[in-house]
């Protein structure tokens, strides 16, 4: 009896000690959908192959992850790494001194020269690298039903004017011209695509990068709001508060002609069994042929005093910035590798197109909401946009003026 207990406890001790010696990496993320979890498995397998032990710590949605991660940092038990959307929020984390600097690794891996300049600016704080970007999503894509456009013998629109010219015909043929669900998330994508495509990249940069209140209230902005208002008549009655994947289903089932949505839509098309080229097509949004509104996932590494955790963080950061690993990851994620030197020959046609736009240089790389504004300012603009959309009688001039006021009063 006694002897058996000793053996059992010995086994338990051996099991407990085993994984601890192989650097355990506790990684928090919110990638739970089909494509996403296959993507994150690429990192997990690679980490295990390099001699570590990956402990998967997935949350449902960013808010749950952020809350859990911040609680763990505050409680003195930080995760090895945690996913975040790059932007002002990551900088604020760095301001609190919560993140480990990654400068040595960045130099060793030659990271910075191989990343888009806009990213480099946003993944650094006080001249130190504090985040590892793993993908480059574009928010300003247009995904369309090839069946609808073939049937109507039309080409997908290259400009907003073209779209407005063909929308009545699409509607007359019994299709929904624009698949759109009126909520904060989708109004962000639509407005960014309109601002870059109809307002122009200069205006976009003035407002989103320089936070120029005068440009935000200018006549050009009134024009953007005016166009947005004219789009109301081309969406269906079920639009208010419809989730983006339900909205995309309208394109998947050929009920709607097109949707302005980021390249994460590809995962949904794949899940619905639709093929790129035969069932659906991708293009940059109208007027956005030389603009890429970047939406980037990063991993940050909370400061940790334990040497084995530091070693685990180094190993993780290096593999996440490995160009080959990034390509394999993004084959499932649907985005581009953040590293521009990654070989993407195996990725699909949309990725090739996106890469071409990004390699056009810094002029083509635009920040999305999260990169441009604090969550508070983003929220105020979203309130303005959803309210403007919901009220058909709202005046574009007043909306532009209100946008100018929000930018002028920014609390940051």
């Amino acid at each position, binding site marked *: 009896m006694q002897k058996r207990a000793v053996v059992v406890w010995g086994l338990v001790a051996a099991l407990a000690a085993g994984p601890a010696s192989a650097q355990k990496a506790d990684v928090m993320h919110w990638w739970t959908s089909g494509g996403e979890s296959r993507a994150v498995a690429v990192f997990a397998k690679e980490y295990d192959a390099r001699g570590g032990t990956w402990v998967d710590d997935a949350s449902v949605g960013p*808010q749950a992850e952020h*809350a859990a991660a911040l609680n763990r940092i505050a409680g003195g038990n930080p995760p090895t790494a945690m996913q975040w959307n790059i932007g002002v*929020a990551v900088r*604020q984390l760095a301001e*609190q001194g919560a993140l480990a600097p990654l400068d040595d690794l960045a130099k060793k891996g030659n990271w910075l020269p191989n990343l888009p300049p806009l990213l480099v600016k946003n993944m650094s704080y006080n001249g130190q690298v504090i985040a590892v970007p793993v993908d480059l999503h574009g928010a300003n894509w247009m995904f369309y039903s090839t069946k609808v456009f073939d049937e109507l013998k039309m080409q997908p629109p290259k400009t907003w004017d073209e779209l407005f010219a063909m929308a009545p015909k699409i509607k007359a043929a019994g299709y929904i011209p624009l698949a759109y669900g*009126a*909520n904060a998330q989708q109004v962000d994508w639509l407005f960014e695509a309109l601002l870059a495509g109809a307002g122009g990249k200069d205006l976009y940069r003035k407002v989103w990068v320089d936070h120029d209140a005068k440009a935000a209230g200018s006549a050009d902005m009134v024009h953007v709001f005016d166009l947005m208002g004219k789009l109301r008549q081309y969406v*269906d*009655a*079920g*639009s*208010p*508060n419809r989730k983006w994947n339900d909205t995309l289903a309208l394109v998947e089932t050929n009920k709607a002609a097109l949707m302005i949505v980021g390249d994460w839509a590809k995962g949904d098309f794949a899940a619905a069994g639709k093929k790129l080229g035969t069932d659906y097509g991708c293009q940059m949004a109208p007027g956005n042929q030389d603009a890429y509104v970047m939406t980037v996932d990063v991993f940050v590494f909370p400061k940790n005093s334990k040497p084995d955790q530091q070693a685990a963080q180094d190993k993780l950061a290096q593999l996440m910035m490995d160009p080959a690993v990034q390509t394999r990851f993004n084959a499932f994620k649907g985005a581009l590798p953040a590293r521009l030197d990654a070989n993407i020959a195996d990725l699909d046609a949309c990725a090739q197109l996106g890469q071409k736009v990004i390699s056009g240089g810094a002029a083509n790389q635009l920040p999305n909401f999260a990169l441009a504004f*604090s*969550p*508070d300012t*983003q*929220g105020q603009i979203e*309130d303005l946009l*959803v*309210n*403007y*959309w*919901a*009220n058909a009688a709202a005046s574009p001039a007043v909306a532009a003026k209100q946008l100018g006021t929000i930018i002028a009063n920014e*609390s940051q």
Partner: protein
Amino acid sequence: MPADRSVAVRRIASVRAAGSITAQARAGRPYRVRSLAAKLVLAPTVLVMLVCFYGSALWTVYISMTRSFLLPTYIFAGGAQYQRLFHTPRWQVAYGNMFLFGALDIAGTLFLGALLAVLLDRRVHFEGVFRTIMLYPLSISFIVTGLTWQWVLSPTIGFQHFVHGLGWTDFVFDWITRPDRAIYTLVFAGIWHQSGLIMAIMLAGLRGVDREIWRAIRVEGIPAWRAYISIILPMLRPLMVTCIVLIAIAVVKSYDLVVAMTNGGPGFSSDLPGKFVVDFEFERANIGQASAAATVMLGSVLAIVAPYLYFELARKNR
């Protein structure tokens, strides 16, 4: 066997004796000692109340008067947060909605709940079945309630779609997608969800009414509807106060219903203060605004509930 029984008898006897001794001791012990024991037992609860409820509420009020943004800071800012709050169009809508939604929800739920209770009180057949059916919505969470009503009310998949399918293609019922009507759809769902509970409470009260009163009513030849309105329901006034407080609490803390059903939309036309606070606290990382909004909520509730409760309690004491 007999030995066992005698043991049992003796044990019961001794227990009884011990009981009477403690009873004697209790009666003999001075009041202060007894109250000390009670106080000690209550202390943790009171402490939790003071720190977690009142402490947090006071802290929130305090934070609302500072410049707090992403994290709490203690730099005094006076009424700056309130100034911004009351100039925020979304807050104006949400705050107004609380009163509109609250008034309609309380009135509607109370009316429907009382009506159902009175109908059941008339000793209908299959009362148990009806009671279960009407109480059922309450067992469903607000999230599920909201989602279900969202589907039912959605013009493209719900009721309107169904009627179109039957051939009436002119039929329009799209309130949930109209900024000027969406708040009323929340009222429907709220009434549907809560009237079963109110019915159960009122029914219990109606069953407690003295038979003699009913006999007197019958003797006087008063019609049933008149008896309910003028005699029976006024007797249940304390129960109604309970019901109103219960519904009012549900109104003020409404969050899940609006998130699941309209998410505050279209635009922010059906927003409620609870959602406003949570959005600012967690999504927008603006503690100052969230605290100011929460403080205004608390103040409004106190301003309405305190005089009402005071009035009702004063009536009772008289």
